[in-house]
């Protein structure tokens, strides 16, 4: 309905291969970014930023990471939680060892450590396929989670055994720590997410993305096309873990403001992110955001939304309700649209492009 594609013809391959070839889509994106960077900080209160937007962004990042591995390369993983942990702890160590360096740099840099670990645990993926691979990733999940707790050096021998996020300033404004306002943290986070999303879309739309999808769709054929499976898969693991790592660092430094591995980076976290990817849609960046929004906001909505409607429900009940609802919704979605929200999004878009025609 809003699309006016007549006259939007491509005279160069560059414009034809652009990620968003349709003008209206580019406008839409611009609007969303504007709202994200200006509208929400102005209008959204601290509570909204802290409990809705920041979690959403953190999970989006993690979901993109897992989607690259599971959605684009077809490798099932239950270790994302742990890789997030690697990022968080790496960032913690880095900033304690070099407090001078801007924290944002460390947050992003911590991704590389996660990537390295990811590669190590990705190695079995050459020989192991499908469900078998889950075991490898579970090994990663539990081993790493264990080491977070068992290696005091990682949490600077705190009595609490947890990460205690220090205050870090940039141009006099606290970005992390107790004094960092939600708005600043939100903006920093949004900046990181935007940038990394751009990078991710570049990757998946180029040669590398194609070889990943080739491996996913038909690995044998891919190899006969000259795509070397191990490098392709390891790269996927590396990039995926990088994103998870950064997400983890963000989670600790820009959201939780401190915490302990066993509750932040446990197996359930891995599940949650997997759900986001599935519900959102495998092999779709938009899907990652939609899935993250859906699953990260749902519980909050229940916890605070329902009482807002005047129905008082004790926290525990809300928690159980969340579980039940989440489970039910997952099944429901898989039944109605196995390809996730991304597909629904696509269909909707197609309808708008064809409006008023049905097809």
């Amino acid at each position: 309905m809003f699309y006016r594609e007549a006259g939007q013809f491509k005279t160069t391959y560059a414009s034809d291969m652009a990620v968003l070839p349709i003008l209206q889509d580019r406008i839409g994106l611009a609007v969303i970014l504007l709202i994200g960077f200006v509208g929400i900080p102005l209008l959204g209160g601290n509570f909204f930023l802290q409990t809705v937007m920041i979690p959403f962004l953190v999970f989006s990042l993690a979901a993109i990471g897992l989607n690259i591995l599971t959605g684009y390369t077809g490798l099932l993983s239950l270790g994302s939680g742990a890789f997030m942990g690697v990022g968080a702890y790496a960032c913690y160590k880095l900033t304690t060892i070099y407090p001078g360096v801007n924290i944002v740099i460390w947050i992003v840099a911590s991704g590389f450590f996660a990537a390295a670990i990811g590669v190590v645990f990705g190695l079995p993926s050459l020989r192991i396929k499908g469900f078998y691979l889950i075991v490898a990733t579970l090994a990663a999940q539990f081993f790493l989670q264990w080491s977070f707790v068992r290696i005091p050096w990682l949490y600077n021998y705190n009595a609490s055994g947890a990460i205690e996020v220090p205050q870090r300033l940039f141009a006099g404004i606290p970005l992390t720590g107790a004094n960092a306002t939600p708005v600043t943290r939100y903006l920093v986070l949004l900046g990181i997410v935007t940038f990394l999303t751009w990078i991710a879309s570049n990757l998946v739309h180029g040669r590398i993305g194609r070889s990943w999808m080739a491996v996913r769709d038909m690995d044998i054929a891919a190899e006969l096309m000259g795509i070397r499976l191990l490098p392709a898969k390891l790269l996927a693991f590396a990039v995926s873990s990088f994103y998870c790592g950064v997400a983890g660092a963000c989670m600790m430094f820009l959201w939780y403001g401190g915490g302990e591995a066993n509750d932040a980076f446990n197996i359930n976290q891995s599940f949650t992110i997997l759900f986001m990817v599935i519900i959102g849609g495998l092999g779709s960046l938009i899907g990652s955001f939609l899935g993250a929004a859906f699953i990260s906001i749902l519980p909050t909505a229940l916890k605070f939304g329902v009482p807002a409607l005047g129905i008082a429900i004790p926290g525990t009940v809300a928690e159980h309700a969340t579980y039940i609802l989440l489970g039910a919704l997952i099944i429901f979605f898989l039944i109605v649209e196995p390809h996730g929200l991304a597909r629904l999004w696509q269909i909707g878009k197609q309808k708008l492009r064809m409006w008023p025609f049905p097809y």
Partner: protein
Amino acid sequence: MNASNGFGPRPGNDTFPKLLRANAQVRAKRPAMRCKDRGIWQTWTWEDVYENVSLFAYGLKALGVARGDKIAIAGANRPRLYWAICAAQMLGAVPVPVYADAVASELAYVLQNADVRIAIVQDQEQVDKLLGESEQLGQLQQIVYDEERGLEDYDHTRLHAISALIAESRDIFAGEPGARAAIEAEIDAGGGGDISIMLYTSGTTGRSKGVMLSAGGCISAATDTVAFDKLTEADETLAYLPLAWVGDHYLNYAQSFVAGFCMACPESAETAQQDLREIGPTFYFAPPRVFESLLTRVMIRMEDASAPKRWLFRHFIDVARQWGEKILNGKQVPLHARLHYGLGKILIYAPLLNVLGFSRIRVAYTAGEAIGSDLFSFYRSLGMNLKQLYGQTEAFLYVTCQKDGDIRSETVGPPAPNVDIRIADSGEVQFRSPGMFVAYYKEDAKTAEAMTQDGYVKTGDAGIFDTDGHLRIIDRAADVGKLDDGSLFAPKYIENKLKFFPNIKEAVGFGHDRAFVAAMLNIDLTAVGNWAERNNISYGSYQELAGHPQVYEMIADHVASVNESLSRDRFMAGAQIRRFLILHKELDADDGELTRTQKVRRSFVGERYAPLVEALYNGSEEADISTEVTFEDGRKGVIAARVKIRDARTFAVEAAPVAEQVA
């Protein structure tokens, strides 16, 4: 002849090559031509085109092209073929575009008749046609082709690739400056009096004739209409009409050279619709049947839409019917209507036009045959500036055309700029125009026939001027007849009125020298088929459906409403349809009942179905007929049928028929 009537060349750039050169200077970097190829719209600026055409021309010169030579051009709309046209003109040679889908023999006839020595064609298909007819084409010396595919192994002594020619000349140009100068000289040597192009009329009657048009004439005509429709270099068109048809040469080639806008060539005939949508032209031409089939498809597609959408659609289409044209014509419209229409624009009209690829259209024309008022106003009510023109190859298209904001479906508008029109006593429309043709090639007799002593061109169409000076074309002058009671009978006019009903595909009217008007009809299988499905009427064949009583009922209503409208027309009231029948088979070009351009051969049909005609007039309720038919695969067969005949409701005449008006 030109000199005498003062419609000849004007000062300035009086040939297309000169225009091209000028464009290459004033708007060097602006796009001149596009072509969907290799997945994107390859684009050439005026500079590029000029360069390529010059090189091409030089290559042709090397092949021995001299002034006055005829160069045949056959193929789809390809930039290189347009270059070919201009390259020929550069050398003072006369391009002769030929219909790409013409069968070998037709092709051969034209090439022979035009004494073509060099043919420039698109691909292997065309080359094969020419080589196949080589014995008839003794005078054909060289063939130049665009697409290499499949031609590698051909003997290349008389065969050349356009790309190769251009490449060679490029080297030469690089080497010797004289070469470019030589081409420049050729351009300067050209003048407005030169024959710019020769277009063969698709002969409704007899063999087709080569219409010679002068460069100056073409350009003056184009200049006038460009001004008339305010076309600028910012416009875009999609060149999808046959090269050999005057419409394409005028609307795309001539006007783009004059106005400097960009013409885009579709990837292929199949993708034309999609390409149209991508390009989104600002200036568009299509014959009525294209608009008609488009509308049909829109309606059918909407049938599948969800209920709320269908409701929205119907609702806002009604709104458009009520206000759209008024708004487009800048009439006074109440505010609430404007708002309502505005909402419709957001929800329906604009998206609809977008999907059809019409979003950006500023001016759209239709011509060739009369267009149904419903059809016509449908598009206009959506806010698309669709207009009618009346034209002829002999006029280099425009004779009349409608002014923005002053548009009615039943007329073709006032005379085009600098065209003067008169209605002969015979009722025939005659004109003099800037673009009028010089003569038929090697057909002086016919030329004389076509002209009056005082230099007017006979259109052969019967027409009437409305009170406000709009021309109304009724019919071919030859076909206009009289009923026994002397009242005017214009079969085509009536037939068109019938055909405006989507359910009626073809109509053949009889009545000249008879007591009353009677008609044979073809139903439209898709439209009536849909109708049948919706009213769950089962049918096995066209014949069965055509014979179905309910179908007869429906058609009878249509005929009645035609009569009703006729009765309100002072010229036509006398010629209401008294009786009609629905033919048991579709009229078909393969059986010679239609021309290749899908025009009814009335007299032929009359003879072929003599028994039915008889029955129409002797009052019988039904009649038997058996006719020989040609099937898809070329086999012949006979189909026999018993055809029912119905009387039609007629209406009291409001104004006495004024036959003497035309006579």
